[in-house]
């Protein structure tokens, strides 16, 4: 075992505990949480059942199902919990030189968006577990985003009192929490259900690099005489010439969908220090073939 003793109340130490023999890539700090939808987990799912009686969409303020007694909330939108809004406005310019204004559309006439649960419900979780809190819902089903009224009461909105569930399991011995997500919040399969099927598809489909520390974009980077840089796209089949091939799913210089489905293990390279790991260089510039 890695350590001899831990203070049973020190939840941080338990959460970050690295068991003997485990590399750092087994730890939660190695997993991205800007989940859209995620890589290791779609961690947004842990918030769906925070309010007793309803199930929220993992990434929208939309009620997808409800227990008996709350069926009338299905299809409605949740706008605030206690004093905390779970939506925000979307503003910006639409023309060069123009000022900023709410960005509205036919599908989003109020120009609002849902704020991710992790941040928008953080106060609720900190202050109201086990208590009921006033939750503001639309009165009618609302498939599209809805803004919050300037004044309440408003006949288009209804306050419903709901209890806040603990996110973490409890300790019978200490009466406190354990650093493990409660079973009531997520069962087997819940933390990965929103990820791409298969995940290999998302590596090609998204072609966006918001997870560069896990799924690199720009590698083998070197300075140029111009004072700028050049390097390879991580998906480049060949590392020479050392140039960045702009993403294009039809460009044969880049790894394709079929490459990933059939042989992601042979096509993708580990990156250490920003460069291809030495084992890939040892093996030559061409990755070995089908791994199946």
């Amino acid at each position, binding site marked *: 075992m890695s350590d001899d003793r831990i203070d049973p109340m020190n939840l941080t130490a338990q959460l970050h505990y690295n068991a003997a023999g485990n590399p750092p890539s087994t730890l939660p700090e190695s997993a991205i949480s800007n989940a859209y939808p995620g890589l290791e987990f779609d961690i947004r799912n842990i918030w769906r059942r925070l309010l007793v009686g309803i199930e929220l969409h993992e990434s929208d303020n939309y009620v997808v199902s409800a227990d008996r007694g709350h069926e009338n909330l299905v299809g409605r939108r949740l706008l605030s919990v206690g004093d905390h809004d779970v939506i925000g406005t979307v503003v910006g310019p639409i023309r060069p030189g123009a000022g900023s204004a709410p960005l509205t559309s036919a599908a989003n006439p109020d120009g609002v968006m849902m704020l991710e649960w992790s*941040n928008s419900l953080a106060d609720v979780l900190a202050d109201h577990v086990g208590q009921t809190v006033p939750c503001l819902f639309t009165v009618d089903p609302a498939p599209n985003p809805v803004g919050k009224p300037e004044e309440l009461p408003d006949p288009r909105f209804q306050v419903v009192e709901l209890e806040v569930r603990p996110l973490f399991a409890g300790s019978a011995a200490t009466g406190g929490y354990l650093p493990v997500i409660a079973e009531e919040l997520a069962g087997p399969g819940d933390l990965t*259900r929103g990820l791409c099927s298969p995940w290999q598809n998302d590596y090609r489909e998204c072609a966006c690099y918001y997870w560069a520390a896990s799924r690199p974009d720009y590698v083998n980077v070197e300075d140029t005489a111009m004072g700028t840089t050049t390097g390879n796209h991580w998906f480049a089949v060949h590392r020479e010439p050392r140039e960045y091939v702009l993403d294009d799913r039809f460009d044969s210089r880049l790894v394709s969908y079929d490459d990933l489905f059939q042989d992601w293990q042979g096509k993708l390279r580990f990156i250490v220090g920003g460069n291809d790991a030495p084992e890939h260089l040892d093996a030559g510039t061409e990755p070995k073939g089908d791994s199946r």
Partner: protein
Amino acid sequence: MTTIKELRVLPPLAIGRLGAATEPMDNYTCEVDPEQPLAPRRLRPAPTFRVDPDSGAITGADTPDELRFTDGNGRVRPVAPFLEVWALTSDDVLQPLTLDLLSANDLTPDAVRWRVEVGNHKIQRRTYDDLDKIDADTGWFSDHAPHALMGRCPHFLDDRFLPLGHARYVKPTPEFPGIRLRFTPAAGYVYGSRRPTDDIEDDPNVVDYLYDAAKGTWRGHADRAGDPRLTIPANIYAGDDGPKGTWVSRGYLDDECDGLVRVQLEVGGQELTAFGRIGAGPPAYAPDSIPIRTIADELDQALHGPSASDQDTLEHARDVAEEVLRRATETVRLMNTEVMNGNTVDGRVDAASTMVRQDTADTGRLYEPIVAPSLVDSAAVLALHQNVLAALRSGTAPWFADVLRDHDEVGDLTAKGRRKMPALMRGADGRHLALTRRQVELVRLAARQEIFRQDDESGETR
């Protein structure tokens, strides 16, 4: 006598990583060079448990000479985490459950029982059909054999299952007396769908056909535009263009999963139980880098709340601030910032999927780069991060507190709003990334407290 009062499984969330190599990934450490705090972290081989394939016992803990993430034959070495059982004892400490502690409670290792339940519910999430859930359950076991995680689904072809890896109760020995389970994830294969009556050629993309397309709707499924229950983003499955702009599923599935590891032990007539969580995802392809915002940050905020408290020392806040900056540097190092800024590159406008594109597509915002195109070459951006770290350390970066994006500013798509940090990245709500509120608060505390310290040292009043 030290009596066992309660059990815990640590780590409470362990991540396995897929790979088809026979030998799991070796252990290593990932360390910051104190002399070069923004240089890539150093990976060093670390003592690695060798589990005897026959007995299930650990036979050694040697440190390999070098790290290799693949087996040299095109297969990735899976990351197979150990989960330990810890005991809260009558002396009110949490300590590892070992042979000695079991013995002190008149117990033997076979009194420990394990059960692993994992699921892959990706198909069900799209079709809403519970018969599309894929689940595996080892049942309770106390032996030291590998227990296959056989994912079963009512909509699979007869007698087929999805291999989701295996779990093994590592046999404790006097040399390695801890009670632990090892989760070895699956190989990372893609599987397909077919009807029993299909006379189709083999699809080279799949290793086998598991899903019965006559029983379920996954092959041919299309997310229905306008359905508010869809995943966000929607249409994230292997598919092909269909009629009326639909995206039609090929019926592929993978062998990722997540679930629970349960442990049970009867002590003095009382049944004690605990559980931890596991998951299986893709490899961390840049293992010396850490994402800016991680699941540990989410759980940390959920445990401690969004605000700093008396328990959060200035030293801790500084550590958090430096770590955030280090992680940002690691991301920038591996990101083509010129492209992600929305620059015109090689004559191509809108050259990639970026926040610039997403802002325009999702909201109608004016399409324009986020910061001045001339400023975003990777070398310049890296240098900027170096300068910020130096300023933070010298107490001359109070302004850094103001450039962080607040969680309720993610929809601020003004020019100034989009330039807040972290820049160029997408958050879990689809708009510009904000850190957790707790991260933001601690970074601000560090940045602002530096002024106080400087003032205090100079003897000036504020």
